[in-house]
């Protein structure tokens, strides 16, 4: 129980952008479980020394940005601001497709890992 409390103190600022990805309400709830494994490889292995981790982190943050843009556009539309309807829908579609791309990448990584673990020694 004790290791749980120091983590938010040290990492709260870095974790925020990743966690906020769960926010947009327009998308299926797949967001919450799949978002964390995608970000996980970059976290424990120090990202500065790991180019692949950096690449993953950048990709996840791009997906996150798509989600945020979609959420903001939908919010602006609902508040009655003059946002064209198709723009909101396109933003949501972009967020959805980029998220699915991220899930596919994560599935591939996991598959490769499991393949390695199944190796006969």
């Amino acid at each position, binding site marked *: 129980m004790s290791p749980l409390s120091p983590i938010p103190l040290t990492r709260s600022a870095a974790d925020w952008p990743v966690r906020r990805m769960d926010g947009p309400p327009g998308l299926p709830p797949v967001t919450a479980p799949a978002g964390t494994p995608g970000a996980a490889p970059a976290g424990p292995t120090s990202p500065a020394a790991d180019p692949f981790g950096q690449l993953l982190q950048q990709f996840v943050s791009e997906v996150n940005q798509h989600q945020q843009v979609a959420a903001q556009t939908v919010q602006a539309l609902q508040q009655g601001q003059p946002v064209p309807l198709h723009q909101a829908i*396109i933003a949501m579609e972009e967020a959805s497709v980029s998220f699915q791309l991220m899930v596919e990448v994560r599935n591939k990584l996991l598959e490769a890992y499991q393949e390695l673990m199944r190796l006969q020694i």
Partner: protein
Amino acid sequence: MVEILSGIQTTASALTAERTRLDVIAENIANAQTTRGPDGGPYKRRVVVFETVLQHALGRTTPGGASATVRVARIQTDPRPPLLVYRPGHPDADANGMVALPNINVHEEMADLIAASRAFEANLAVVKNARAMALQTLAIGKR
């Protein structure tokens, strides 16, 4: 930035432009009988003019080269003269009993409306197909 749905900016700009065209047509139809405008005369028919914007000029390039988006350059009035109708009882009639009605033919506006609607539909089809292509590409990895 990963280009997820390529060419979608072009289509989105066309959708916005067609939407504006639809608004202007709605304005024309709504004011087809308006004999009194802010300048005193009858309402004048308005027409949208589209123009191409090269994304390349804005410093944004796509892998497929410079993509041209569309935008509404200006909304200008139709120079055709107003329609003079003999209606002596009308409050806006002149000394001879003639009323100047707007230079709007509702049938023409309906034809324009159909054209705008079809153009919008065509662009929506592009969006739909771009999405379908992206999803089908993602399905390559699935077994």
